[in-house]
């Protein structure tokens, strides 16, 4: 009782100046946030809102008119859009798992304590990530040309007799794109796994070894569960990245042959710049990407089903 009383008296005395200080602190804090908030509002949320409004309009160039939900209805009957979604989802379903598994394996190999020249391998595998998207796409285009080095190699090794039409055959063009993006992004994901692996306590592995677990068991029972949040993170970022895929396809195949490799982002580009511009419908398509990203992310969270993830 006495203790409580003294506490109150102590607190009561400086309350006035304390309040002032709190307000001042608050103001300083808010002033720091305001600039960022205003900027984000101005450069992120305002354009987003404008794009949303735009997505309800349609017309050529500057002759835009409100058309209600027509654009959204048109999405579902537009074969080009559907083809673009199919292609993008194909990349997603095939490429993301391949890349994640590859990145995992490589990072586990590189995390080996006994490995020599670790720094060199790490750099070599990460290096593709710092190359320019356009530059590497152009290089891939030449590598995979019908008389490119890949075909010549395969022919010289007598693996094939006729050159594979990597860029002009609908099936192989997709394969080329998948190979290209896997090459570019595996190292990027590997870095996340590596840093996560270095946080895993070595004593867990030691304990497992003492209990007689082999390398496979260690990998599946320790490494994967320990990396789960990172795996979730990388698969979400990769999913978003794949849904927004543009540079590679634009530079390697231009979406062709036909629209066999067309992605949603490239379709947006075509709608606004290649054809007679219809910015309204292009905005609608970009909102379709937003919705898809949200849905895919929710699915991944649910599948991974972890609270701390």
């Amino acid at each position, binding site marked *: 009782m006495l203790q409580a009383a003294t506490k109150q008296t102590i607190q009561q005395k400086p309350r006035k100046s304390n309040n002032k200080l709190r307000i001042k602190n608050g103001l300083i804090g808010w002033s720091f946030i305001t600039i960022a908030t205003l900027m984000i509002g101005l450069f992120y949320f305002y354009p987003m809102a404008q794009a949303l409004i735009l997505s309800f309009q*349609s017309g*050529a*160039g*500057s*002759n835009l008119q409100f058309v209600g939900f027509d654009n959204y209805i*048109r999405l579902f*009957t*537009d*074969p*080009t859009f559907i*083809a673009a979604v199919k292609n993008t989802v194909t990349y997603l379903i095939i490429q993301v798992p391949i890349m994640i598994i590859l990145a995992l394996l490589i990072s586990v190999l590189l995390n080996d304590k006994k490995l020599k020249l670790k720094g060199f391998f790490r750099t070599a595998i990460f290096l593709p990530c710092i190359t320019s998207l356009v530059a590497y796409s152009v290089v891939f*285009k030449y590598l995979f*040309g*019908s*008389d490119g080095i890949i075909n010549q190699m395969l022919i010289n090794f007598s693996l094939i007799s006729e050159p594979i*039409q990597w*860029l*002009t055959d*609908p099936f192989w063009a997709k394969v080329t794109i998948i190979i290209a993006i896997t090459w570019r992004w595996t190292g990027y994901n590997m870095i996340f796994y590596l840093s996560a692996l270095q946080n895993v306590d070595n004593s867990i592995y030691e304990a497992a070894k003492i209990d007689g677990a082999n390398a496979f068991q260690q990998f599946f029972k320790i490494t994967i569960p320990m990396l789960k949040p990172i795996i979730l993170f990388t698969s979400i970022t990769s999913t978003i990245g794949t849904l927004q895929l543009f540079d590679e396809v634009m530079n390697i*195949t*231009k*979406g*062709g*042959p*036909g*629209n*066999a490799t067309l992605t949603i982002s490239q379709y947006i580009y*075509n709608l*606004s*710049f*290649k*054809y*007679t*511009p219809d*910015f309204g419908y292009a905005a609608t398509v970009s909102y379709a990407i937003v919705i898809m990203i949200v849905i895919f992310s929710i699915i991944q969270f649910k599948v991974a089903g972890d609270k701390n993830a």
Partner: protein
Amino acid sequence: MKKLLALIMVCMLLLAACSSGSSNGTESEKGSADANEITVWAWDPNFNIKALELAKEAYASENPDLKVNIIENAQDDIVQKLNTSLSSGTTKGLPNIVLIEDYRAKSFLQAYPDMFHPLTGSFETKDFVQYKVEATSVDGENYGLPFDTGATGLYVRTDYLAEAGYTVEDLQNIDWKEYIEIGKKVKEATGKRLLTYDPNDLGILRTMIQSAGKWYVKEDGTTIDLANNEALKLSFKIYKELVDNDLMNFHSDWNEFLATFNGGEVATVTTGNWITPSIKAEASQSGKWAVVPHPSLPGMESVNASNLGGASWYVLDVPGKENAVDFLTKTFGSNVDLYQKFVTEIGAIGTYIPAAEGEAYKTKDEFFGGQSIVSDFSKWAEEIPQVNYGMHTYAIEDILVVAMQNYLAGQDLDKVLKEAQQQAETQIK
């Protein structure tokens, strides 16, 4: 506190610098409008830019006061810049004169009405090739001053033909059926395919249907004309025949295209005359090439002339437009000597009819066995049927590329064209 003060001062300084910078910008822009200065955008340094420089020289000798700024941009960049600026309703930072490809012209003119300055009456339209005037006009109003022609020809390797027992005479004014027959024999004799094409680019279809006076749309420029377009159907059949007989080589980009004919892989090249410099780039093949008229569509009204590509000059409705019009009409619009220079120095063939009487047009080209190809091309250019390209050439073509793939894969022609028609109708309003 001192630091805060310093920060604020730095911020103010920056802001001041920015605002003064922008006011400078507007001042100089205003200045350009008054002080006889115009800006021109174009692409391709070896072709359009060179032509502009020659025009600038010619104009400066008579009107030394006007300063002409020539700025080179890639075509895609020009299209993007125009689209973004015009759609936001601002003409700030846009040039006075811009080069636009004929297939895209109407899309700009109709998507951004009032942004372009009409040229009706400022030059003689009947002095220009008719199909070009049609391509640059909307609702009877001329907006563009025609520049180069994309008149097509059939470039042939005379040595390969000779091996198969043909001479250049056998290829004059042939139709596509005869062309395929010749191609089969040439392939038997030399093992070389007949031509090379990018499966993503249906330029060859465009040349075929334009030679019959047809396009992807009807004369009004908006009614989609695919399903019942006999010329298009026939062109699809010819394309498939070329592929099925393995006469068609596929390339995936421009460099591969050049490598294919420079390396002697194909017996003919069928495209616009702007390919001439690239063909001549392989000096070792001098004397082995000839140019014959473009094949016509068999069994229907079709001429041995067509068009692929080509661009024209447009004046934007911004301050300085009077100077811009004056510059264009006195150079590209009426200067015969200038057109002779285009031919001798660049190899660019214009669409200004009086220029064809000039000496440079009649020069014989040793690379093509002494043929005067420039006068041949300008003769063919006058025969090109005029069509209304409409606004949606590239949008429709992307649909047709898919239709073509389906057709080549064995689907029924009427069915694929009907589907393409439906798709185009829902996509284009």
